[in-house]
């Protein structure tokens, strides 16, 4: 059984069809990268899988469970990093991570996680005063502190400097040794370096899915992406 299964997923937001008959899957022990232009339906699909949006039609399954209104026992197995962070700004990174850890029975060690993500020196600073990259790393730590079996990371390296990005990639790969990690990204380099499996979406639909070699079919990921999405390189 796939850790993540999306079958014929449709999600209408008002009059807009954000996701249209999308089907793909992600396996445990692998990183799945979901690419696509803005508005392709990546985040909407992720939020259906995180239980934050209810599919209009089709099914979304995570570890065999329908995530919409799934119980705490299911949510404890899932790690979520939202595109906009979702961090309370009036607390410190350390207090926030300790709080999220307390929601789990077997959390990762907060201090070690903060050291790994180079957050120790800013750990006692209010989240409001952190830089964009620091906030990204706090959000990533919050997603991983519960030691999830499936991690949904929405653009985890957006705004990070090259050093921090390498550290995040290492951590994502390490997490994927025993979990399914689904990452949305606009970075071809990130997808090429991280992903075992690639999904390309455009206008709400899945236009390619498979291993990097299968999707690229002898071309670069960038070339393949542009040929599958808008047709022309903008």
């Amino acid at each position, binding site marked *: 059984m796939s850790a993540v299964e999306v079958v014929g997923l449709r999600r209408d937001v008002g009059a807009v069809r954000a996701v249209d008959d999308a089907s793909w899957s992600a396996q445990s022990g692998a990183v799945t990268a979901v690419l696509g232009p803005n508005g392709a339906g990546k985040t909407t699909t992720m939020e259906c899988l995180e239980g934050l949006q209810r599919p209009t039609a089709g099914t979304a399954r995570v570890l065999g469970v329908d995530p919409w209104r799934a119980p705490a*026992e299911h949510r404890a197995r899932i790690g979520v990093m939202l595109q906009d962070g979702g961090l309370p700004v009036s607390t410190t990174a350390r207090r926030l991570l300790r709080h999220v850890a307390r929601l789990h029975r077997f959390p990762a060690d907060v201090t070690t996680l903060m050291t790994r993500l180079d957050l120790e020196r800013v750990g006692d600073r209010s989240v409001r005063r952190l830089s964009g990259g620091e906030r990204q790393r706090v959000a990533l730590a919050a997603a991983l502190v519960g030691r999830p079996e499936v991690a949904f990371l929405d653009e985890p390296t957006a705004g990070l400097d090259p050093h921090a990005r390498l550290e995040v990639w290492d951590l994502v790969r390490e997490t994927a040794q*025993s979990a399914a990690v689904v990452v949305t990204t606009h970075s071809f380099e990130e997808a090429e370096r991280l992903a075992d499996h690639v999904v390309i979406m455009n206008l709400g639909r899945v236009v390619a899915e498979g291993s990097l070699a299968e999707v690229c079919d002898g071309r670069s990921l960038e070339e393949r992406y542009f040929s599958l999405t808008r047709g022309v390189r903008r």
Partner: protein
Amino acid sequence: MSTSPSEVAAPASRTSRWLAQARFETATTLRHGEQLLVAIVLPALALVGLTLSDSPELGAGRRIDLATAGVLALAVVSTAFTGQAIATGFDRRHGVLRFLGATPLGREGLIAGKLGAVALVVGVQLLLLGLLAACFGWHPEPSGLVPALVTVALGAAAFLSLAMLLAGTVRAEAVLALANLAWVLLLGLGILLPTDRLPGALASIAGLLPSGALGDGLRAALVHGQWPLAQWLVLLVWTGVAGSAAARWFHWSD
């Protein structure tokens, strides 16, 4: 370091999660300067001001007793309504509600945590403001302490329901403006000023508002030792209406 899954990833117990959230929200509130200003400093200033002046007229009874009952009502409104509406509105704006809703805490844990945090902060407020009032000679009617606590609990429930309705349906900036405006207006609509001090029809209207029911209820209990059943009914109706509306229309994201 291991972020790999444990053999059986599991949530902390429900009680632990809810208590953790209540503690987190309480600590965040008590460390937040603006929240402390609204929750403690302004009610304390109101108490001192009302005690040391002769205006406005607060009705029959010792002035310090009447003023303290009103200030305790103000403290409840500050925490359960103004503070929670603004904090929840901006948490919604920043995606905090969505993030925590996706953790083992969930939406029901968020609500439970808010209830716990309001109870804890109101407890701190009652203690501090009660001690300050005692320094000015406050003597609450002993037989009114239990009905006063019931009134505080019902008032907090009504105002928290209104806070959730406002925070879940209006943009964060509008929540900030409306919650602060309401705080000022409610001072004169039964919170500090008893409804029977208001002119004509306004007195009747204010008596049906949660502010009038909370303020008058606390004055009836703490000053006269009464059980303010009519005010409790008003607060229960407001809790039911606002709570149902919030459950129906609350949006978890901006």
